[in-house]
């Protein structure tokens, strides 16, 4: 089973990296008014129950992958389809 954790700077939290990216994109001539930079963590899990996997990944995100003070996260669980 695979999980993708998308970590973003919380809305309202200053993101200087995003601001720098926005400025650079604008200087290239793109009409970008805002950019926020986050992080994606792809995980391969041994679990075979999707609900169990999700709750495990939630704990991982809270304990380590994201800092809840400044970051929010979203979890996507992908169940692999068996090919015959």
């Amino acid at each position: 089973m695979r999980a993708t954790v998308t970590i973003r700077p919380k809305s309202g939290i200053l993101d200087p990296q995003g601001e720098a990216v926005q400025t650079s994109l604008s200087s290239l001539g793109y009409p970008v008014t805002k950019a926020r930079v986050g992080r994606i963590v792809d995980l391969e899990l041994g679990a075979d129950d999707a609900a169990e996997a999700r709750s495990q990944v939630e704990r991982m995100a809270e304990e380590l992958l994201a800092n809840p003070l400044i970051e929010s996260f979203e979890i996507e669980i992908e169940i692999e389809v068996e090919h015959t």
Partner: protein
Amino acid sequence: MSLRPRIAVVTFPGSLDDGDMRLALELIGAEPVPLWHADERLPDEIGAVVLPGGFSHGDYLRCGALAKLAPVMRSVHAFATAGGPVLGVCNGFQILCEAGLLPGVLRANRQLEYVCCDVTISVEETVATMLSDLEPGTALGLPIKHGEGNWYTDDETFAEIADRGQIAFRYLADVNGSRDLVAGVCNEAGNVLGLMPHPEHAVDRLLGPVGGAQVLEGLVTAARDHLGVAA
């Protein structure tokens, strides 16, 4: 027992300032004891623990986020909870925040640039034990060198910790976007202190300002008190 309290200096993979910290502590009047991040126990008769600056685990994920899981941190937690003095400098401050021993988080500098310069910080009205001999308002000169020193916490937490005297140091001028110019904070009990500037680099007149000496003297005093030895 010797007059020189034993102070453990933890080295993580990627620590840089552990050597300078040991030298500075020796100069100030302590007996530095090197400690490796994988050590599970603190050495005997330790009066304080220091987490030095550097780039533990290459700053992967977030600064200090991986180091907080080091085996030694369990013992550091227990030591801090029992009232033992713990000082975190720069990356050590980041680790203490990530470990939940200090409030807030250190984010990328507002200007997105690494800063390396001498700064002046003021000692605030604080419950930090290590600073109890310093008058609030005392100005200290010492260097900073960091890319992620922009301390932040939310409004509610900020009001609480400011009320409780947990703001330990402020920069006199904005250097990194840090909330309310905060340069260092302590825990509620006052025994755990973290700051971005480097006291260990500011103890010898030959090398610039010497404001670090007063911070480390406070640490040594706190270590002596913790061990119950007279100076």
